[in-house]
């Protein structure tokens, strides 16, 4: 089996991976569908329990994400980069919506959305990796305050600039490392960037998912109630362990050895889960429960940032660790 898989071309290997993932989704969805019958016959038409509803929502998101990844991979690198640019755009839109801006910030916002974002993804798409890693931290970092100063409004100047730069760093810079991972060519690993993205996403998501499930089951008191009503160090540690184990099990699709894969998975999970906590602190500061803001006034957003924030924090660290390891 293993031999047969290894003899396939990289493209066929990635295709096999997608068939496998879609297969799992079909099995799980069928099981969830059958479960609804069983529940109906025992509970006499009661509404499905909250847990099952949550699970269905999660399943829907998984289908959506896998389908997007598949489309991105099948349509080629340019389309993949474009799709991630679109995700960045929507995430930054959510972030800016809930960070109050003043009239003088308008030019800076135009710069962020219509100049910085396209250039960053263009750099990814054309493989200018050296410029891509410094474009936002160096050039944009200095350009934003200049534009702001020219706006001529000094009220909360530092705070407003910091917000905009922070939003760009998380939503654009962080997210753009995912397609970069897809396009970076590792030695003896050409055309298999999709495996690296898959590895990163699965590892981080399984860590976050287990934390979420355990928080519900164990009902431990929150470790930092002022930031998050659910975060607890014990469930966090369990999530980290699971994420690392999943990473170790998946080492055969990566260029890493098993212990290296475990280490990489650990690093990615730590960055992702801590980043998620940071975003929670930000949300608390803004007085909202979710970026999507279900039911409250400000926006009608769908909470995209809630789903991708862990990835935004994990991707750059994972990318640069991998680059450093391969010395490329």
């Amino acid at each position: 089996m293993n031999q047969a898989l290894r003899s396939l071309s990289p493209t066929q290997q990635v295709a096999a991976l997608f068939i496998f993932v879609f297969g799992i989704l079909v099995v799980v969805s069928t099981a969830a569908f059958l479960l609804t019958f069983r529940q109906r016959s025992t509970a006499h038409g009661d509404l499905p329990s909250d847990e099952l509803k949550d699970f269905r929502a999660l399943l829907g998101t998984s289908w959506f994400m896998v389908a997007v990844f598949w489309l991105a991979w099948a349509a080629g690198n340019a389309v993949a980069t474009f799709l991630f640019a679109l995700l960045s755009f929507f995430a930054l839109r959510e972030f800016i919506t809930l960070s109050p801006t003043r009239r003088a910030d308008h030019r800076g916002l135009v710069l962020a959305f219509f100049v910085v974002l396209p250039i960053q993804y263009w750099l990814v798409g054309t493989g200018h990796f050296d410029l891509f890693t410094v474009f936002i931290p160096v050039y944009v970092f200095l350009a934003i305050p200049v534009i702001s100063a020219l706006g001529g409004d000094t009220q909360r100047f530092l705070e407003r600039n910091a917000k905009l730069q922070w939003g760009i760093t998380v939503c654009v810079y962080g997210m753009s490392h995912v397609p970069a991972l897809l396009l970076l060519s590792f030695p003896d690993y050409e055309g298999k960037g999709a495996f690296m993205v898959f590895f990163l996403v699965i590892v981080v998501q399984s860590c976050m998912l287990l934390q979420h499930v355990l928080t519900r089951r164990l009902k431990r008191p929150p470790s930092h109630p002022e930031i998050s009503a659910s975060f607890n160090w014990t469930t966090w540690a369990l999530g980290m362990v699971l994420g690392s184990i999943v990473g170790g099990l998946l080492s055969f699709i990566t260029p890493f050895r098993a212990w290296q894969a475990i280490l990489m998975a650990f690093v990615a999970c730590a960055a992702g889960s801590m980043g998620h906590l940071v975003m929670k602190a930000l949300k608390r500061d803004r007085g909202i429960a979710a970026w999507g803001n279900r039911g409250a006034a400000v926006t009608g957003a769908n909470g995209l940032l809630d789903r991708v924030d862990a990835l935004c924090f994990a991707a750059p660290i994972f990318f640069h660790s991998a680059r450093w390891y391969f010395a490329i």
Partner: protein
Amino acid sequence: MLAKLMSLFLLGLVRLLTGAQARWQGCPPMAEQRIYFANHQSHADLIMIWAALPQELRSITRPIAARDYWTTTPLRQWITTAVFNAVYVARERKADEDPLQPLAEALERGDSLILFPEGTRGNADLPQPFKAGLYNLAMRFPHVVLVPAWIANIQRVMPKGEVVPVPILCSVTFGAPLRLEPGEERRQFLDRAREAVIALRDL
């Protein structure tokens, strides 16, 4: 054909930039004859509320456009007539004509209207006092349902004097319909209508 394409393009653009989210809090979207009245902070308000309405209502709901702004260039005029099917009103009052006449004609034909009773764009947090047009229309057409609406965030998308819009999520909240009570004073009714719009802000 061209107008259809333009409306699809504008709809796509507004959704991409603002999400164009409609929140029906006080009444469902329904094909009855209505006057939607909302706060007014930007020229984009008109497009925003138009985009937030469902497709079926968009064709029977006509926004009101200020003649002096929306007919100055051929493009603006074409967009407001061919795409939005707008009703023009004059903001400058002339002695011998009734400024509400075009609105009354549209209501007699059975169309719904989108109205900004402040008359002009404000840039304060709260809307300015409402003008009498809403009261006069409510008197003349008692069967038309009056729906208050609050447009949130649109002034951040394109502040006065800027040309490039930035993407920021906006929403339109529609509230419970208002009635003109028998014997209600004009000022009293207009203040009540304004309160109804403001109340939607924090919903």
